[in-house]
């Protein structure tokens, strides 16, 4: 590489940054607890204060609590880098993935609660079945009865781009459980289901748009949305959820399928 001097500057910066870090921070976690086996139907708050690395994830801090302070703390997690969608929680009042929140950004004090609108089963674990039922209701799979070609179906980069954003959904439920309409009525299909319908409605290879739009035109469908943008703010994948919902509304009102 001919850029040796440039890298020299970068090396110095990275060394300085490391020298400035190093110190641990004190973090107090205020966690909403629930355990029907030991404490009945009432939830309660617990506080834990730990020492943490500033660049740790909030998930690491929760692990520290579980592994060293209170083994009964229950949460879901898997990949720990924002792809599997297991650890959506309400963190300081906003939905996020615990593995994408960095301790430095929330210290010295953070409040952690389960996502809202789904039945809590234990601590930070909620019943995801109503959420997945909404997902399943929009026929979330490619519908094409025209027969399969020998090779791939053709799709231009522009056609592919039309639905790119909504293919990023990881079904973490952060959007749906940030929606005030969903909090009030679990029958509302919710933002994530609409995102997954969108992903197929605007796929040039799909032939099921009319059926999906009929489902979403019904009373628990897309017109319940009041465009509060909570869903877009909550999405850990940066999907423009509200825009996707508006696309679908517009198609129901103006397009012929």
């Amino acid at each position, binding site marked *: 590489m001919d850029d040796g001097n440039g890298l020299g500057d970068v090396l110095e910066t990275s060394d300085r940054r490391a020298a400035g870090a190093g110190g641990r921070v004190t973090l107090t976690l205020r966690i909403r607890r629930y355990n029907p086996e030991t404490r009945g139907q009432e939830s309660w708050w617990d506080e834990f204060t730990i020492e943490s690395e500033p660049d740790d994830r909030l998930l690491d801090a929760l692990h520290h609590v579980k592994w060293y302070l209170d083994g009964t703390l*229950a949460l879901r997690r*898997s990949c720990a880098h924002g792809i*599997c*969608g297991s650890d959506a929680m309400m963190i300081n009042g906003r939905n996020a993935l615990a593995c994408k929140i960095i301790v430095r950004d929330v210290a010295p004090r953070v409040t952690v609660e389960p996502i809202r609108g789904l039945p809590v089963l234990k*601590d930070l674990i909620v019943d995801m079945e109503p959420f997945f039922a909404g997902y399943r209701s929009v026929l979330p799979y490619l519908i094409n009865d025209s027969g399969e070609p020998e090779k791939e179906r053709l799709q231009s980069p522009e056609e*592919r781009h039309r639905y790119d954003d909504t293919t990023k959904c990881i079904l973490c439920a952060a959007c749906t459980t940030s929606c005030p309409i969903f909090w009030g009525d679990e029958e509302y299909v919710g933002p994530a289901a609409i995102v997954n319908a969108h992903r197929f409605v605007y796929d040039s290879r799909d032939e099921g748009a009319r059926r999906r739009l009929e489902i979403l035109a019904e009373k628990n469908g897309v017109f319940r949305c009041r465009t509060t943008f909570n869903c877009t703010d909550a999405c850990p994948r940066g999907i423009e959820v509200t825009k996707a919902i508006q696309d679908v509304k517009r198609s129901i009102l103006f397009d012929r399928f």
Partner: protein
Amino acid sequence: MTTVHTYDAVIVGAGGAGLRAAIEAADRVRTAVISKLYPTRSHTGTAQGGMCAALANVEEDYPEWHAFDTVKGGDYLVDQPAAQLMTEEAVDAVYQLEHWGLPFNRTPEGRIDQRRFGGHTRNHGEAPVRRACYAADRTGHMILQTLYQQCVKRDVRFFNEFYVLDQLLSDGRCAGVVAYELATGEIHVFRAKSVLYATGGYGRIFKVSSNAHTLTGDGPAVLFRRGIPLQDMEFFQFHPTGVYKLGILLSEAVRGEGGILVNSDGERFMERYAPTVKDLAPRDLVSRAIYQEIKEGRGVGPRRDAVYLDVRHLPHDVIEEKLPDVTEFARVYLGVEPTREPVPIQPTAHYAMGGIPTNTDAQVVVGEEETPVPGLYAAGECACVSVHGANRLGTNSLLDIVVFGRRGGLHMSEFARDADLPDLPDAPDVRVRQTIDGLLNRPEGANAADIRGELQEQMFDLAFVVRSETSLRKMADVLAGLRERYERVFVQDTGKVFNTELTEVIELGFMLDCADALVAAALARDESRGGHYREDHPLRDDANWLKHSLASRQADGSIRLEIKSVKLGPYIPMERKY
């Protein structure tokens, strides 16, 4: 109380291999999928770069070139007929996924676009070839979603958050599995004619790993405890570009799109180690090169134990359109802006080449003569076909799961259609109940996180990119000590509802089994091949070691090692240069 369910086919695990098998089996026989996670949480979803198949959409390519690269990349420990089969079926496997809606990136003509990847070359090593079909840098996510969508369409029966803890065998054939229901703590027996394991890897035995917390070797360990040998466990892949300290994967696609590795001198050091393909050498070679640079004092970072992955010279639209996720990982977890700064990386434990021995129909086979265990199957990372040999090429894992998931699903359902329902052994749940009761009725004891942390630290120090007899003997001693502590591990939570402390402790037990097998096999193999590098035996030794290893747990707790022939083919082992 134990609930008994009866199925023709039971699939354990709902990542790519399990879902692909389920699609095949559910159309034919009564099928259930049991998974400790919701299917969409599976680790297939984190695979980034692509899935190789010789479509020849953007340049000349043939399955035969792909087969050669796979065999050479695997340092000739690959079973060549299996690699030939996989690379031939790859083409239809990609079209199948496209027909199911997978949103591949496209060429201007609307065909599936393809890009370069490590170790994939034109005409037996001439130059890198564009073979990897991809969907931005979330190809695994799109495969997992697409397969799950097809399962929803077929109304496949899922038992989500059920954790399989034991395999049932009667008269030498598969009889079913025993599972623990996370939400209730209840035990379920699944009586089944055929069972396919697709539980993924066990990278969590290492401190720095790209693997999910839940990748703890459950399937291999369950079978290991039932006397099934594990094959080639010494071969673990250390991916060169993990996020510094955290191990989060930064896809090889970064280098496929033109990213380079540089040391503290600003030198593109891979030019010295692999003059032809440079940064796109196979992962084992690149990881060793990084280790060497660090050892010789050319590392970066505060402890000089990293090197840089540099994409500053790439066009912004390539970074934003083709590598959006990996760019975000650098921003979120390192606070580094890759368009302006190079990203500190280090090798990360990524993929188990070894696992449950199978044939190309995904049947579990035992011994040198490869006798199938009737009704028992495995596919994906938990299995060892072996198509990856001593070092897997990038993208071949996604190919493996769809090709052998499909073959396994097909074979298990045909087997189940013709087979009688097996008898259950007496008291089929007794082992699982004893394990759980033992763990929950202990007033005090060792801390599981301490044991796990020490396992991960020591495996990282003693059995990682570079190993030796000394380091491995030390690791074997460490494991014996950890085992002793594990025998008196303490679980504070005695409840039944989502007792995730209990399930984590059970996972730790499985991790210890996998580590035992890995270290025993690595100690025995006194040569260097693929991902297994012994600094006290730095050369490959085909005369003695062109062999698979089989590790079996003996009644006294020790591990017995045997060897098994590699199925050779047209490719004669030669020195691996790139």
